[in-house]
């Protein structure tokens, strides 16, 4: 992670403006803007299946970015992110159906509710670190999960609760194609917000807490405040992601928000790159496409004569499950700094081509 705070030699910045920029170069800025515009046209080009995956990337990406702010930038750990994601989903569904709050307000409100819950469970972070903190947040996972199953008034208990589609000025975003724009807007908004946060005083304080908490404290950064704030922001992101998930499906069931989901969020940010905003997105894209790509390979096998027998197809199903684990191990060994680091290396390679040093 050291490369995140130290700039390579030759990278001089001579003004505050340069130091504060969101996009490092003009080209990057234009590429970002153009790719967002291109994504706006996606429903016209790709089919419903890809739109679903893009929506999945959006809501998971928002939640994963929250976790990256907590783990990658502030150096804390949370094993309860899946439960916070679920809390956002239920909170938004509850606000919109029970209290009749319009969905476009209930989504951000659900974010703030989740923020409160996250800060409550983040309180132990003031006292404990590392593995101990991991176990304390693990408790949050189980407490919240059990709460979902029992709190009939809030989550509908075992029957689950329904979430109305998002409507704005009488237009209902209830198809994949229309909801895609909501998801895309939320993704872009939350990622720009994340980028902005990281170049602010608070963002620098997070990094200071992560890199050397003692020095940070000596410099006047309040450790408790920033650790707690980080938990709050991280849960806020999880809540927004969860709320989008709820209104996309139209139905929330207590079953999905398990410890496995929390681990998967951690896997996403480790694969993407801890302490990297674009890495978060890369990790999420990778984790969403991996099972689909493996399914595609199984599909190709099924088309062949020798492959389309139950023994082969079932065997491949097991291999598919194992492959996800293998990829995570592979990343930890060969690319512990994640996809974003790999991306930088590829970029540098071409930048200096053919005279790489």
């Amino acid at each position, binding site marked *: 992670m050291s490369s995140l705070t130290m700039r390579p030699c030759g990278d001089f910045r001579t003004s505050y403006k340069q130091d504060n920029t969101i996009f490092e170069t003009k080209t990057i800025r234009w590429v970002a803007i153009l790719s967002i515009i291109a994504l706006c046209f996606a429903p016209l080009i790709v089919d*419903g*299946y890809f739109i679903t995956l893009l929506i999945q990337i959006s809501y998971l990406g928002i939640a994963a970015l929250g976790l990256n702010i907590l783990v990658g930038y502030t150096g804390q750990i949370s094993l309860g992110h899946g439960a916070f994601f679920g809390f956002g989903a239920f909170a938004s569904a509850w606000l919109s159906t029970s209290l009749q709050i319009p969905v476009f307000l209930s989504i951000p409100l659900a974010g703030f509710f989740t923020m409160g819950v996250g800060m409550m469970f983040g309180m132990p972070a003031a006292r404990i670190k590392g593995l101990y903190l991991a176990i304390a947040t693990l408790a949050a996972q189980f407490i919240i999960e059990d709460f979902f199953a029992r709190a009939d008034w809030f989550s509908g208990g075992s029957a689950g609760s329904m979430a109305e589609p998002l409507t704005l000025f009488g237009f209902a975003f209830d198809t994949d194609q229309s909801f895609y724009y909501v998801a895309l807007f939320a993704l872009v908004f939350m990622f720009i917000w994340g980028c902005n946060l990281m170049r602010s005083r608070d963002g620098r304080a997070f990094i200071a807490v992560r890199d050397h908490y003692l020095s940070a404290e000596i410099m006047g950064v309040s450790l408790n405040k920033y650790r707690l704030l980080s938990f709050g922001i991280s849960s806020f992101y999880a809540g927004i992601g969860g709320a989008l998930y709820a209104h996309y499906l139209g139905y929330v069931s207590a079953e999905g928000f398990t410890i496995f989901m929390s681990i998967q969020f951690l896997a996403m940010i480790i694969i993407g790159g801890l302490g990297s905003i674009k890495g978060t997105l890369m990790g999420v894209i990778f984790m969403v496409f991996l099972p689909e790509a493996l399914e595609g390979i199984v599909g190709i096998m099924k088309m062949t004569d020798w492959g389309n027998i139950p023994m082969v197809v079932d065997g491949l199903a097991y291999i598919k499950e194992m492959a996800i684990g293998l990829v995570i191990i592979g990343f930890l060994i*060969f690319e512990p700094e994640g996809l974003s680091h790999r991306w930088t290396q590829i970029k540098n390679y071409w930048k200096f081509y053919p005279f790489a040093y």
Partner: protein
Amino acid sequence: MNKNITNKVLLSALTVGISISVTQAQAADSVFVGHLADMSGPTAFVGKPYADGVRDSLAYINANGGIKGTKLEFETIDYAYKVPQAIASYKKWKSRKKMVAMQGWGTADTEALISFVARDKTPVFSASYSGHLTDPTGKNPHTKKPAPYNFFYGASYSDSCRGLVQWAYKDWKTKNKNRQPKFTHIGANHPFPNAPKAACAEYAKELGFKVMPPVVISMKPGDFKAQCLSLKSSGSNYGYIGNLGGSVLSLVKSCNTVGTNIQFMSNIWGGDKKVFEAAGEGIRDYIFPTMTPFWGDQAPGMNLVREISKMSDKSGKKERVHHYMRGVCSTFFMKEAMEWAKDNGGITGANVKKGMYAHTNWVPKGLEGVCLSANWSNDDHRGVNQVNVYKGNYNDGDVKIEQVSQVTLKRRDDWLGY
């Protein structure tokens, strides 16, 4: 540098892998049926035999003329009980293959897809028997979300439990005890075991049971002696098991060690020959419901089931558990609804739904004695209201299963969707 190149090759290989997407050419006259199965996830214990039943049936239908000449294209996807994979597969089938109907699996995928299938008019035949799927129009004020395109073959979890409770009450009376019997719900705090919890407890109370506080055991196998001790000390007489697979095994073994004197009654997934063989000594008069006969039974329709089984087991020797037969029934009801749809305006999702209402006292052709007769109507999706109650005994390894009762439940309005 060399390492770098290898890494790059690896990475580009991955990218290529990701970008590969499969599109199969559609045959001229064919319809597509998606099949979601859990063969490697947490419910694989029963998910595998059920999925085999569905898959073999689909293959058999295809090998024998399809839907009146229309080929049945299908794909089985093992989604490992993960909701995102289930949604993605559903969307893929819907947008690329023009899916007309789907064979689903458990609580997780069925509930996540309720809104989508209603909007897309795609009938889903699930193996999730939650009571709230049976109210298609929201007639019962209990129903939060009507599920107009969800069907399943069998009695709902709530109705099965009601049937068992009814049996239990008779059983208690024949034992001629004057005390009030006690009833306990045993299961994890999860949507699947909880589905019949309130409905069943209500009915047990109505019949005259004393309903004890539910006992929570995890879905994962573990040491449940503490829970068994609390069952023992509460003096509960009848316990409904809401879990499945390994968790049931652990419960039976733990309670056997502790010496709990309770009559276990399990849900439909919690009792089959495999469970009894593995649980061993603890299986004494273990009560469970079924919707089909067993592999060795002599029912007229079993000949067809044995033919279907040969689709994946050419020797025909493999013994199938009763979940397999339910998969067969679920598929054949769908098949006949499709046949009706073909004669009445073409095989589309909406017509297949109508086809489900076209028959009364309906048993798929060739499966007499295997599938119970069913009645679906456009405001009542309780297809089957009959519960066969069976008793299992371990008998030192010679597992014996016998029918003890057949309960027919009233179609009460307040039970619709609940």
